[in-house]
C-alpha cells in the first residue's frame, strides 16, 4: 500500500497541478470505494467527480496537518450520504398496498407466495444469470425502494443510525423495504422461478 502523502507546500504549487496530482493519486481508490457503496457504477463516477470539485473549491481551507486521503474520503462520504438522502426526500407519493393484498389485507388471489425450487441455495446465489436477473428486478424498482433495501449492506452503520442520517423514521424505513421486497419477490417469481 502506498504511503499516504501530505499536501506539502500546497500554497506554492498551482491549484491546477495540485488537483491533477490528487486525481492521479487517489481517484482509483476512491472509485473502488464508492462502487461498493452506491448501486450503480455511473453514480460512483459522478460522486467521485463531485468530490474533486469540492476539494478544488476548498483547497485553501484544507489543513495541511490532516492527511489528504482522509480529507478526500470524508468529502466523498458526505457526497454519498447526500445522494441517498436526496432520493428519500423525493418519495412523496402515498404508499398503497392494494396491489398484493385485498381489502381485508389478505393476499390477493394469484399473489399468494408459492414455494420456489431453490435447490442448492449457495450455488444459486452465486449463479451469474441469477445475479443478473436479481439486478434486473432491482432496476425496475423505484430507486427510493431499492435504496432502502440496499443501504444497510452498503453502510457500516446500523439501521437506526442510517435512518437518522437519511432523515426518515424507522417505520418508514422498513415499510419501504417491505414494498421493495414484495415487488422484487414477484419479479423474481415471474422472471426466474416460473420461467
Amino acid at each position, binding site marked *: 500500500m502506498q504511503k499516504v502523502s501530505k499536501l506539502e507546500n500546497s500554497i506554492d504549487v498551482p*491549484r*491546477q497541478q495540485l*488537483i*491533477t496530482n490528487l*486525481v*492521479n493519486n487517489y*481517484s*482509483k481508490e476512491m*472509485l*473502488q470505494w464508492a*462502487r*461498493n457503496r452506491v448501486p450503480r457504477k455511473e453514480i460512483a*463516477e459522478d460522486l*467521485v*467527480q463531485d468530490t*474533486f*470539485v469540492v476539494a*478544488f473549491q476548498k483547497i485553501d481551507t484544507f489543513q495541511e496537518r490532516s492527511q489528504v486521503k482522509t480529507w478526500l474520503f470524508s468529502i466523498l462520504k458526505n457526497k454519498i450520504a447526500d445522494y441517498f438522502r436526496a432520493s428519500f426526500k423525493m418519495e412523496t407519493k402515498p404508499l398503497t*398496498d392494494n396491489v*398484493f*393484498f385485498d381489502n*381485508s*389485507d*389478505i*393476499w390477493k388471489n394469484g399473489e*399468494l*407466495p*408459492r*414455494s*420456489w425450487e*431453490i435447490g442448492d*441455495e449457495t450455488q444459486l*446465489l*452465486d449463479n451469474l444469470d*441469477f*445475479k443478473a436477473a*436479481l*439486478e434486473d428486478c*432491482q432496476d425496475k424498482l423505484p430507486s427510493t425502494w431499492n435504496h432502502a*433495501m*440496499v443501504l*444497510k*449492506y*452498503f453502510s457500516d452503520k446500523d*439501521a*437506526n443510525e442510517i435512518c437518522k442520517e437519511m432523515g426518515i423514521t*424507522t417505520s418508514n*424505513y*422498513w*415499510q419501504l*423495504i*417491505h414494498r421493495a*421486497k*414484495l415487488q*422484487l*419477490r414477484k419479479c*423474481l417469481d415471474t422472471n426466474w422461478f416460473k420461467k
Partner: protein
Amino acid sequence: MRKSLHGIFLSCLKASQLVEKQQVFGLSTSEAIQLKAHLLMCKGCDEYKSQSLFISKGIRNKIKKGDLNIQISLEELTMVQAKILAQFS
C-alpha cells in the same frame, strides 16, 4: 389465512411487514409471538418469509462479493480521470 381469524391475529399485510421489520430492527416480544402464530397458520406468509430471507441473502451476496472483485480497468480509470480533469481546465 381465513377472514374470520382476523380479529385476533395479524393480517397478511401486517405479518409480511413484520417479516421485514424483524430483519432490520428486530421485533418486540408481542410482535414476535403474533408473527410466529400467523406464520404457523398461513402458508403464504411463511413462504414469503423464506423468500424474503433468500432475497436478502442474494442482495448481500451480490454487494459483498462485489467488494472483492471490483477491478477498475485502466481504460475505465483513464476515462474517468480525464472527465474529472476536464472540469478544471
